[in-house]
């Protein structure tokens, strides 16, 4: 039983990490139907920015909690700025172009950002300071679940609730939903579509940055490639849950994380990714729009 709980918690950690990235993915997809391949790179840039800020501040001898907060804020600001700029440069000119062109542009952007960080910083793994302190009250159960994992669970939950609230109940959220449904129509009723799309990128990228800081602090190391690997998995999770749907992204991530963890625990980690992808394929065969996705009918 203890083994089961441990695997469950491990799965929860994986799932929450995927969810933090998948939320941004699914948001951008929902609004402009673009697989934003560079989203993983935004996450990576967030982690790098946080590492640089944290490195400077810790040399100045600041208190770890203050470092965590300041590093996260700056990482969020920078990731959001990168997200906004990328949209303006690589996606906006392609609004009217075929969808594949936008996808290739996103892939190009992803490559560019990876090698930009590689060249400007390093290709080696860098140690990332564990910014999340080990809480005192966690001491007795630290060998089952770590403090950083608890922080990741809670943050994921908060981010999901916040985003759902933002989309469901605010003015800008309404505009986002309208743009997602029909961009031309949204324009006709006076919504500044460009602004809405920019806003979506900013929010999505900020979420990725939060994920970047937390995950880097949890795993303790980063390099330029972490974004791509995590990005692919998060994308799979988003599709599994039904891309474009916020609860779907979280659910898909949790299902993916759990199934990977249990598969590793009870069968073998050799074929863990094979299992994850097969799971995705079978889910999509029976539910072609993902677990929570709306199945849209053909328009003639």
């Amino acid at each position: 039983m203890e083994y089961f709980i441990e695997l469950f918690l491990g799965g929860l950690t994986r799932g929450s990490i995927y969810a933090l990235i998948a939320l941004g993915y699914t948001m951008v997809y929902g609004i402009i139907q673009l697989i934003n391949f560079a989203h993983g790179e935004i996450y990576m840039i967030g982690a790098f920015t946080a590492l640089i800020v944290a490195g400077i501040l810790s040399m100045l001898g600041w208190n770890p909690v203050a470092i965590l907060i300041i590093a996260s804020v700056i990482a969020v600001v920078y990731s959001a700025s990168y997200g906004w700029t990328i949209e303006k440069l690589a996606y906006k000119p392609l609004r009217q172009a075929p969808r594949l062109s936008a996808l290739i542009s996103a892939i190009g952007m992803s490559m560019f950002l990876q090698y930009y960080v590689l060249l400007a910083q390093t290709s080696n793994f860098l140690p990332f300071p564990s910014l999340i302190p080990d809480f005192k009250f966690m001491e007795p159960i630290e060998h089952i679940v770590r403090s950083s994992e608890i922080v990741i669970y809670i943050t994921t939950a908060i981010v999901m609730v916040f985003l759902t609230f933002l989309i469901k109940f605010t003015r800008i959220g309404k505009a986002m939903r309208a743009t997602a449904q029909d961009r031309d129509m949204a324009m006709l009723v006076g919504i500044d579509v460009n602004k809405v799309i920019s806003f979506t990128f900013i929010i999505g990228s900020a979420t990725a940055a939060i994920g970047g800081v937390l995950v880097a602090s949890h795993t303790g190391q980063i390099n330029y490639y972490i974004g791509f690997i995590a990005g692919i998995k998060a994308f799979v999770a988003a599709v599994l849950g039904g891309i474009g749907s916020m609860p779907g992204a979280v659910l898909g991530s949790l299902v993916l994380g759990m199934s990977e963890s249990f598969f590793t625990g009870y069968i073998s980690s050799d074929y863990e990714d094979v299992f994850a992808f097969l799971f995705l394929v079978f889910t999509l065969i029976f539910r072609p729009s993902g677990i929570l996705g709306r199945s849209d009918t053909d328009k003639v």
Partner: protein
Amino acid sequence: MMKRHFGKVLIVAVAALFMTLTVSGVGLADTIKLGVAGPHSGDLASYGIPTIKAAELVVKDINAKGGVLGKQVELIVEDDVCKPEVATNTATKLVGEGVNVVLGHICSGATKAALGIYKDSKIVVMSPSATNPALTQSGDYPNFYRTIASDDAQARLEVDFVLDILKVSKIAVLHDKGDYGKGLAEFVKGFLEADSRAEVVLYEGVTPGAVDYSAVVQKIKRKGADAVIFGGYHPEASKIVTLMRKKKIGIPFISDDGVKDDTFIKVAGKYAEGVYATGPMDVSSNPMAAAANAAHKAAYGEDPGAFFLNAYAAALALLNAIEQSGSTDYDAISKSLQTNLVDTPLGKIKFDNRGDATGVGFSMYRVQDGVYIELK
């Protein structure tokens, strides 16, 4: 308008590129050409660049002393990004430029792909880092030499250490599913299964770059392993060790040359303490090694990187073989490599008929107070 223009310009540009690049690249000067191949860009560049630096230092030294056979030595450096398909192009390029001997390649896969081309062109190749056993043991690559011991030697050392010194029996063998890590883990598993004292309780690969390894770590505990042997590189090793220690699993962790890297200690921090790793024998007492390291520091302002000394030794051995045999002929060089001892930072070495350097081996290291200490 724009459309037409753009297309035309592109075609013309490509055509022009062809012309310029094909015409150039025919060297005439009478020099000894030493090709250097390996990953010089991209994510694995940190494994390949120290070899270039070693070659540069050796060549500068030798040229200052009058060169080899009275000729100056010229370096021809080409990138292979550690990919087999690029490595064949790299090899044809080097062959086309008339290299006499090649120092490289770095990764075993790329080396295997390129060796066929060198073999057909009768060129001796010496790698400072390709550890795959088949390279020397299969007999398919008579033109291949290396200044590093092969993976099975490393696996043997790890297994002996675990069974004879740590005296534990239940062992979990993990690897990173990669060329190097899995190859090594296969040997470890084979050696353990052949020995009645040991039992492999877990044999699994972890996915490199995965965000969390807690499931695998829990499994190590559940299977009741007394020691973990890991084949792979330091990023995964540090994640696994950190998790194990945080989950209060204090069993010994034994790994390989890919982990015997200072970055591992930096990343894993206090959790790295007590980790065992095999690595090339400590040669810091060798005056040539100290001199080579000092020369690197003087020339490039930093400490040398991975495989620097192996590459330094390989460059010396290759050029020495040309000098000793008095020609750049393939058979003469091979013969000289196998008969004449040469003084290198790794000690006095020569090569056996399979291509492995004699007297080059591994020792076991342990992390103590943040540094790797060789266990005698």
